[in-house]
Every structure is written in C-alpha cells, then in structure tokens.
C-alpha cells in the first residue's frame, strides 16, 4: 500500500533507520534494514534532463525495515515498511507499508 507521508526517523551510527514515529505511533526496527533504490518517472516531473543531472532524477533511496509499534496501547503488529530518504537532508517519507491487517486498521 502506497502511503507517502512524512515521518520522523531516528538513525543508528551507520545511517540506517533505528526507530521512527508515524501518525503519532513510535515504531522500533527489528530487522537488519535493507537499503535499496527505487526509481522515479522523471519524464512526468517538471524540469529538465540535461546531461549531468540524470542519476538523481531516477534513483530514490529507500530502506526496507521490519518494525513493531513501541507505543503502549497499540495492538502489537509486525509490519514491513519502506522508508524513503527525501532530497532535503534528514527528511523522510513513509513510502509503503506491507501488511494486510495493518492496511485495514489504518484505512478502514
């Protein structure tokens, strides 16, 4: 499920996500975060594609993490999340969440 909402992310020493807060809920990462690169449909976005600008046009850095809610009172649900690094330093997006149950809880 595509989410695309801002999140606050706390990083470990090697720069990978450790904890994050989303919709008022704190989550703790319980897997080895896996870094990957998704792509953008750059031809639909405003702007140019002149020589020398291209790498950043396509690649979108993501971290895939398994996480559980740390906030008391929430039902404990394991979920998998893609956290996307935005172009401004320190800003993150919750890109996607994978969990059927979570889906129904969040958007029912």
């Amino acid at each position, binding site marked *: 499920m595509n989410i695309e909402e801002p999140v606050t992310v706390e990083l470990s020493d090697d720069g990978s996500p450790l904890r994050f807060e989303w919709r008022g809920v704190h989550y703790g990462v319980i897997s080895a975060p896996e870094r990957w690169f998704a792509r953008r449909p750059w*031809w639909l976005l405003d702007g140019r594609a002149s020589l020398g600008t291209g790498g950043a046009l396509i690649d979108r850095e993501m971290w895939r993490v398994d996480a559980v809610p740390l906030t008391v009172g929430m039902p404990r649900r394991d979920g998998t999340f893609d956290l996307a690094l935005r172009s401004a330093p320190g800003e993150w997006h919750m890109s996607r969440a994978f969990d059927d149950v979570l889906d129904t809880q969040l958007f029912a």
Partner: protein
Amino acid sequence: MPRFTHLHVASAYSAHFGTSQPEALVASAVSDGAEVAAITDRDGLYGAIRHVRACIAAGIDAVVGVDLALLPERTRRTSTPGRQADSPAPPTSAPPASAPPASAPARITVLAHGHNSGEGWAALCRLISAAHSPAGDGMPRRPSDVGIQRSRPNGFLIGESGPVATVLLGPDSDVAQAVAAADLPLAASMLAEWKRLLPGAIAVEVVCHLTEPGDRASIRHAARMLELADSVGVPAVLSNAVRYLRPDDAVTGDVLDAADRLRPLGAFQPQPNAQAWLKSAAAMRRLAFLIVDHSALPRSAAEQLLSQTERLADTCRLDPRADLAWRQPKIPSHTVLGVDGDPLVELRRRSESGLLERYGAARSSELESLKTRLDTEIETIGRFGFASYFLTVAEVSALMRSMNVRNQARGSGAGSLVNYLLRISNVDPARHDLLFERFLGNKRSTLPDIDIDVESARRHDIYRAIFERFGENRVSLMSMQNTYRARGAARDAGLALGLDDAQIDLVATNLWRFNARDFRQVLSEKPELREIAALVKNDAQIDMLVDLTERLDRLPRHISMHPCGVILGNDGLLNTTPVQPSGMGLPMSQYDKHDMDDAGLLKLDVLGVRMQSTLAYAVSEIRRIHGRRAAHAGGLPVDARYVSADGVIELDEIPLDDEATFEAIRTTRTLGMFQIESPGQRELIGKMQPTEFEDLIADISLFRPGPMKGNMVAPFLDTKHGFAQPQYLHPTFRPFLESTYGVVIYHEQILRIFAACMNVSLAEGDEMRRTIEDPEARVEERFRRQTAANVDSDGARIYDDQAIERIWAVLKGFGSFGFCKAHGAAFALPTFQSAWLKTHYPAEFVAALLTHDPGMYPKRLLLAEARRMGVPILPLDVSASREVYTVERIEPPRPQGVLADPDDVILGIRLSLSDVHGITGAELERILANQPYVGIGDFYQRAAPSRALLTRLGLVGALDSLATRDDAAGDGHASRGDVMARVRELIARGKRPATRNVQPTLPIFVDDREQLTEVTSEPSMVERVATELDVLQMEVSEHVIESYRPLLDELGVMPASELLNCWNGTTVLVAGIRVATQTPPMRSGKRVVFISLDDGSGCSDSTFFEEAQDRAGPLLFGTKLMVIQGKTRRTGERGVSIEATNAWDLKALWAQWQQTQQRQEREAS
C-alpha cells in the same frame, strides 16, 4: 587499494542499450587504478577493436567477451494453424501497457581466455557468428532470435587442451531467474547442468544493483546466487553488469529502452534504477561485503569473491599480438589467386606485359622512363610484401571486367603505374603527373587503400562473384555503425516522451545538419528554428525533448552493410571477426572501417556509383539504337578507333581533348555531368571556362572547403584568363606548377617542391608532407637547413633566404587545403565521359540519367533539360514503355513509297513504367511480358494490373494509344475522358475475365471502341499536370509552376532563362520548385544557404546570407514552391546568381491572391 576488474561492461556499441563509448569506459577504469578492462557488448564484438585499442593506448590489458541471449532448446514454434482453427481462441485483450514483457529471454556472458594463441578469440568469434547464423531463407534473424541454445557453447568453448573461454551466469541468466522466482532447487539443478556442459568454463556472476529486496540484482538475490555457487561448487565472481559510465547516463538508458521497444516511457517495465554504472573499486568491495553479510556464508567469502574475480580477469587478459595478430595484414594467400611461386615475380611479369598494351605507341625514351618508374614501384611493393595484395585487387578488377561491369579506381591508387598497367585504374599516371609515392611511401605499415567505383546497379552481382571466387571463409562484407544524428535523435526522444507525431514532425523536419548535442545552443542561432525555440519556452515537454535529443547524439543505433567495403582475408578470417547476415544475405563482419587496420584486415572499397551505371546504360542504348551507324549518329569520325564496328563505344578510350565537349561544359549547362552539376560548381565552371582535361582535374580539386577558404581559386582564374602573370614561387617549380598556372593545388606538387628544394626522394617528400604539422617531425627546421644547403654545380645556393621564406609560407599554409591529384584525376574521368556523352548523344544520355538517377536533381529537371536540347519526351504507354527509359526513333511523316532518310529521324525518350506510383514488381513484369496490347480490355485481362494501377495508368495517358488504335468513329480520337470511362466500366465489372478463356487475337479493341463513344472532355492542362505529378512524381506535359502563372505574371516574376540578360545588381523576383538546397563551405566560415529553383525555363540559384536567412526563417528548408526576391550577381561570362533578400511560400501567396481576386470580383458584381 586492491584493484577491481569489471568483467561485464556494455558500451554504446550495444545498440539501444549501452550509453558510453568504449574509450570513455577504459579511461574511467584506468583512473580508478584498473590494470585490466573488459568489454562485453550485446550480440557481438562491435566495440571490441576500439576497446583493445584504447587499452593498448592506456597501457592496460584488455578482456573481451559478449553478452548473448539464451534461446530455448527447441526453436520450432509448437502452435499449429490447424489446431487454432479447430478451437478458436477466446478474444484476448491486449496486455496492460505496464505489463513486463512476457518472458524476457535469459542472457549469458562469454569471456574469451587470452594467451592461448588466439584460440579464445577464435572461439568467441565463431560462437557469435553461430548466434547470428541466418534464418532458413539466408536472411538476418529477427533481433529476438539472435542468441544461442544452452547446449551449443560447449562445442566452441572447450578446446583440446581445456576451456578457452568462460561463461558467466549473471542476474539475467536462467539460473538467476529461478532464484528470483524463489525456486532454489530448480536453480541448483540448472547450475549443475551448466557445470556438466561446460566443465571448468563456468562461473556465477554475482551482481547487486540494490534493487527492491527480492528482485533480481537485489542484495538478497545476490546473496542467494553466491550461496548457490558455493553449494554447487562453481566459482563466483562479482560484477556490476555495467550499462553506463555514470549514474547520470541512466536517463539516456531509459530513452534507449523506449526506442528499442518503440513504446513511450511509462508504457513498459523500465530498468529498476540507476545503479548499473561503472562503480569504483572501493564501492565494489563494499558491495561484496554487503552481499556476504546478507548471506549465510562467512565474511571471508567476500575476499574470496573478489579474488576469484581478479583470477578470472587474469585468465582473460588478451595478448593483442599473439591472440589477435594485431595490425598484421591477413590477406588471401597467393595460392588462392592461382599463382605458384613468388607473387612479386608474377606482379612484375603482368605489369611488364601491361606496359606494351597501355603504352604500345610510346617513344622508346618514354618507355625507358616508364620502366624505371615501374622498377621503383615494384621494388617498394616488394619491400612491404604487398605483391599478393596488388594481385588480389587486380583479380577483383579482372573479375568485374569479365562480367562486363564498368569499373574505375578512385583515390590515390590512381597514382600507381602498376595499378594502371594491371587495369585497376584507367587514368594514365604518367600523362597527368600522378605520383606513386603519394599512394605508397616508405613508411607505411598498413595496407594502402585501393577503392574501385563500379556500376551501382551491378554492385550486388559483383559482391556475389567475389564471394564465389575467393570463398566464404575468406570474404566478408564490412559493416557500418549508423549513429544518431539530430533528426533521428529528436524522433526517438519524442517517441520516448510520448509526443504526438505532428509535434515530433514539426521539430524533426526543421533540424538541418548540426550535431544533436548542440541542439539547445543552435536554437537561438538558427532562424529556421525560431518556431521551435518559442515552443521550448512554453512547453515543458519540448524543453525536455531538447535535453534528450542532445543525450542521444552519436550513439550507435544499428549496424548495416557498409555501402562499399568488402573484406578479403586469409583462411582464418572467421577466427578474426564474427559475421552476421547482411540485408542482402551475404555475411557481414561486425567490424567497421575504423577497425580494419588494427584487425589487420584488407578492405577493398567496391563503391556502387550510379554515374557508372548511367554511362554503361547510355553506351548500351547507343548500340541498340544505332548499331554500326553509331559513330555517324554521334557526329564522330566514322573511323573513330574507340567505336567498334557494331556500335560499342569504348568510353575509357575516347579522346580527352574533344573540343565539342569542352564547349558544352563551358555553357554551364552541366546538368547530369558528374561532379560539376551543382549550383556552386556551375558558378565555378562559368568562371573557369575549362579548355582541357587538366582544368577539370583542377576544378574538382578546387571545389572544396580548403581551397575556397584559402583563396586559391582567384589567382588560378586570373592567371588562366591572362589577367595576371603566373607566379611560380621559384623558377625551378615551373615544370610542375605550369598546369595549375603557378597555384599549388595538389599534394603531388608539394612532394615535388620538397624533393626539389631539399634534394630528397619523392617518398621522403611525402613523409614531410604527412608530418608537416607534427612538431616532433621538425619539418620546418629540416626544410630550411637542407634547402639552404642545396647548391648547384658551381657551389652557388639555388634557393636564397627570401625564396625559402616564400616557399615555406606556402607549404605551411597548405596543410588542410591540398588535394591528391590522383583523386581529382580519377573523378575527372567520369566527369569528362558524361559530358562527352551528353554532347554527342543527348537523347541516349538523358534516358540513362532518367533510368539510373545519378545526380542531385529531380527527374522533372532532367525532362526540362531534354526538351531544351530538342529531345521530345514520349508519354507513358503500356504497349511501348519499359522498366527503363528507352530511346525511340520518331520518323517524320513521308509520302508513300519514299524511303526514310536515317538522318531525318528524331530521337525521343519514352517514359518508364517503373516510375508509376505504386506499381509492384510483379505487375511491371506482367505488363512487360505481355506487350503489346490491342485494347484497354485486353491490357486489363492479360497484364492484370490492380484496379488502382489501371486507373492511374489511364489518368496519365498510358492507355491512350490503346483507345485510338482502331480507326474509331467520329474524328477517330478518343479523349482521356473516354478512356477513363472505359476504365471505370472495366473496374465496375467486379470480376476480371479469366485469361485462359480468351484468345489474345480476339478483336477486343472493337469492344473498346464501342464503349468509348461517350463524349467527355479532355482534362485541362492544370488537371493533367496535377495527375502526372501525383502518379509519376514528375510532370511531363507542363511545368508545375505554370498553374500559378496568372499570379506570377502579376508579380512580374522573371523566368530563370532571362536572368542572364539582366544588369548586374538588378532586383528581381524568381519562382519555382526547389530542386536543391546546399550549405557549402564558405571562406568566411559563416553559414550560407544556396537554394536552386526550377521554373521550367531553367534553374535559378539564390544565395541566402545571414540577414536573408533570418527573414526567410522556416521557409529556408521546409518549403517546396517558393518565390524569392533578390539582386542579380554576375559570376562570370555565363553565370548569374541571385543574392536573396526575401522569400515567400508560393502556395501561401496563391491562396492570398485568390482571396483578393474573389473579393474584388464580388465587389465588382
């Protein structure tokens, strides 16, 4: 930092895939500390020679491989048409636009091992050739069918002493596909099968592009691949499956993917991200550890992965000398030529017998000097060991003569006496002072080029004959890389962005001869791009289009057969180069002309030249029409030795001093004459007024950027016309500068200057010429010193300091200007021959021009030229027209019983059926086979044209002769309208009468007559011209411009034929249809546009300088019918051109004018 070698790298020579030039990839690897660099292009070795060359230059070792598709074991499609008919398939909806291709074929990479005397290289070449081996019909495979079955590499890659290459199973392999599908048992059994098929010649290629977890080339996937290699016991290597040099190039890759699939971005599954770049050794090490950390293997596995990569790289390092025989000539052995013993002895023997044939009438002193020259040439050829090469070329040339195909060596090869004696060239090098040393000096290490022009229409026959004569294992066609130019780049970029066709057309049609990479820059500079520049400002997509067009510039698009290159090799040719079928079915090397010298391959340029076909056809028409009266018909002496008794003219023997021919050239009515028909050349010819063959050589040599910029033309003309005294630089130069009036034009003259001044040989002179701009050669210093030291028998200096200054200034400034005289002379021969034919046999020559279309002008202009010369054009006639333009005798009416006087006969040109729009080869064949016809019905029945074709033939009058054949009722003449009525009636019948039931002798024309009685009017001249243009793409009855006559008269437009009567500087208006657009090199370096308009009376040439270009804007290149305003400028006795001030679109003017007319009419009534 330990090194890392990228073993899987696609360059831009992986067409529609890679984005980076091999040289750039090598340079980047070297700067990162690489000792070895690999290239593994898709489907071939297209970039391999360049890669090896770049590696040698950078002082590193090269690895070469190929990336090939893996085909299913059974190639036969299993679906049978019968079963489909039994059970009709449910209506299938098209797959959703974003669906990935059903099953992208698996791919493998094959790396040749090195240091095995070329065994690895040969195996690679032969495997690739097998992957391209022709489809059943001998034609190229479809791109999706290029590849190899899993069982095949074994036979190529496992040599007698073990493997000679290694197959890499990377992220696109069948094994990796199984891993990605999480079917590990299947993956393991596949890998085990590979291992069994290719013992010791297999490795798992671990690639991590940091794609979405679980996908191919993700961290997880790479980790599983590594574990799999470990468990099956196959070595693993790390690579980045490189597709581009920098992350930035990934955008270019996206655009190429779209071009490859012919679908816009967003309508197909794109590459997953931009990670397939040439990452640094440090980054690759980090990846190795990242992968291992995600695997079940110990950390030491990372070091092992990296060291195995380097071990394989070492195995694959090539030794260019031992593995590729780098730069060593590989030519057919003399035994293939049927020569026993020493080829040099044979070459001398043949040359000496040629001496008698070519110079039988020469004086003995001349003969002596020719023999001396021959000795020198033979000695040089022998020293280089090129005797077999010359014999090979002579063999090819003899092969062409035996096929009765005209041929003529071009280029510096014409400077060789040996070539002349062996009949490779037909220009006498002694007579025109052409020098062997310019062709083959002292220091050459690679084979000299001999280029042969042949009849274009016979080129493929010649290729086939060469393959037959030398054998398929020794001959291959050369290929060429077609690269993106501005227009193609804009089209594919537009496609990628999903622009509609109209938008793409608007941009593409206005791009004119500039580099795509300068697109944005020229937008503001070129007036014809004004509209596009405005669009760019307002439309973000067009703005983006400019960026993408620039990115595609010069990337290879596809490979095709080179227009003339034939490679003649030794028995091992197919171990040297992979071959694939060309469009004509013959095998074609994957190397292009830039690869030839380094690969040590001999390329013979067999260039199809339409003018040679034209000449041959004119000669055959002369013989057919005139037979033994040929000489008389052409106004030649009846005993002319170059005309045979039965009327065959030996064009290579005609006298080169024929005054009638030069008189014709001097009129500047040079249309159809080789090399001298362009507007610029007409201007130069008008000024020069050539009087001898040497002038034609000079004319052709002067008409190029260098001499135009260097102002060599004016002194030449002034001296020729006696306005100035010749300046010979030094009196000793007179003998060899006299023919060019003191102006230094030719390389040959430079050689002679060096030789005279410095007392050196001509070969040394050529060495000086070649290195004149190389500071290390210190040519200037040597020239000054040795020339100053050159003294006569009294010890006096021959060249004083002033003379040395003067001479050096000319030599230095000459660098880019000079032209090889042998080249000019070889060109001037067909120039003269075509002029000679046009002068003596105008009808036959124009018929040949129309048939073979050798020139730059449209056929309508040739028709006008024929009419101007008094040669009638005979209309298309299905009973008389052939597939070519033929000459017909038109006998004047004469009283009964009076015999025809052959001199009274006029020759006309009958139009050809092959120019009828939409006629198929089969229809043409049937029409010709059944000629003549007795009626329209008869024609429809026996020739069986399509209905559309029948209609078109009727419209242009090709059926008129059938309708009037019988002495019909009324005035006996059926109108075009009657013909068309009959055509419509025949078509309306629905069913054609069956041919077999009808006797051709039946008086069908009687039916026609009966049905032609409806009286309908003749079409107007305007309608007739419009129809002819439509059907024939040229007008026969009247010039297209005549339709606009009322407007032109009102404007006071001047016919082109009257321009010569104007004073210099008269302001005039001309109109016509555009026949040529040129942007020739100019002295100032600024762009000048020449536009030639044809208005039926002749051709006007207008020059647009900057300001006028600005005014004309988009009209410059886009408009066919134009009106141009400008001032006349006399360019010589018979030349005039127009300096344009403005231009309009004639059609637009016409529309405006008609509106005005109508309004006035309304107001008047």
